[in-house]
């Protein structure tokens, strides 16, 4: 009888293990089957290590030449038009030489440059000071070099506006919506109390399009990967003497000007 009790316990133990293991195995088996949703980039998205732009000012003589680029940007990014210049929102705009390149003025600057309008936009710096000062990480530098804003996170402290040496940022002092001529449904508007600036058309790059200003520039603007020696921008940079805005500050602008 002793041996039979022993063997009974053995069998009971093993079968208990077996019964216990079944649901565990079931869970393990099923967890492999249920798929979690995945996110990914579109196949036609444009990618780079460091996006950059070259502006050939020889092809953009007057303010009228800049207009189509400014206009298209204003339109597709729902940029409001305020009458009060202190409320102005600007992503891309015209600036004269002494404001565009202070400290790079020659004593006797030639007349063409002196009275010319330069296309100005966010420089998407290599070491962006606006990113360093943002307390909420609303402004951040993407892997492809674009300095981007997450409007959801912006608390409107305007540290970035103080930090940016190029005046590339604007603050929404009032609700911009009533001042947008025609709303462009594919891009959100902003709200009162957030800062905004040029985004190098990140929303267009994601769907395989180059920035809108480059598209309408008739070849005056070149856009591409500064990290790729074979890219179009690098070809243009190799062949032409270019200057950048306030290079001494060491922010490393990614926008170059052929003057």
């Amino acid at each position, binding site marked *: 009888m002793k041996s039979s009790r022993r063997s009974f316990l053995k069998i009971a133990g093993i079968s208990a293990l077996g019964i216990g293991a079944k649901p565990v195995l079931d869970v393990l088996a099923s967890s492999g089957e249920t798929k*979690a*949703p*995945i*996110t*990914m980039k579109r196949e036609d998205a444009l990618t780079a290590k460091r996006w950059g732009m070259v502006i050939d000012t020889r092809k953009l003589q007057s303010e009228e030449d800049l207009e189509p680029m400014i206009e298209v940007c204003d339109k597709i990014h729902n940029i409001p038009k305020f009458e009060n210049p202190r409320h102005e929102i600007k992503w891309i705009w015209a600036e004269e030489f002494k404001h565009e390149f202070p400290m790079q003025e020659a004593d006797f600057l030639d007349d063409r440059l002196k009275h010319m309008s330069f296309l100005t936009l966010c420089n998407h710096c290599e070491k962006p000071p606006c990113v360093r000062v943002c307390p909420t990480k609303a402004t951040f530098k*993407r892997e492809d070099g674009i300095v981007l804003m997450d409007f*959801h996170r912006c608390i409107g402290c305007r540290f970035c506006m103080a930090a940016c040496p190029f005046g590339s940022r604007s603050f929404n002092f009032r609700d911009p919506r009533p001042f947008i001529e025609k709303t462009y449904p*594919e891009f*959100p508007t902003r*709200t009162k109390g957030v800062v905004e600036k040029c985004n190098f058309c990140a929303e267009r790059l994601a769907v395989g399009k180059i920035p809108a200003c480059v598209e309408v520039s008739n070849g005056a603007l070149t856009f591409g990967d500064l990290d790729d020696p074979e890219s179009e921008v690098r070809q243009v940079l190799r062949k032409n003497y270019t200057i950048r805005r306030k290079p001494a500050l060491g922010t490393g602008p990614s926008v170059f000007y052929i003057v």
Partner: protein
Amino acid sequence: MPNNKKMYDKGKVVAGLCIFVVLITFPFWYNLGKAAPAPEPKLSDKAKAAKECVMPTAYMKAEHMQILNEWRDTVVREAKRIYVNPSGKKFNMSLSNTCLDCHVEKAEFCDKCHNYASVTPYCWDCHIDSKEAK
């Protein structure tokens, strides 16, 4: 011991208490059975035809705000715009252009429940309901 626990003005106090209790519970019994019915968000024809949203309906009802938060972070921060749901269907992660493309009537769909639950998401401060914009 003398009984010094005698209540003065018993009648007035009890009557006053009764009136107080009735007044304080007034909103409860006055509104009894008059609770506003839970709203039924109206599905547009396009949404009906699609049968299923990005995720199963029950999940969407409970977790659409989490999905939207995930979407906004992946789109803005990671530059990824395509969402592949467990059944392998691809969606462009966009509130204005994907969600509202199907749920055409924001007022009949989003707002109905949000108003009932007294939540005011600030999505629409920036994101455009193209119907309203026109």
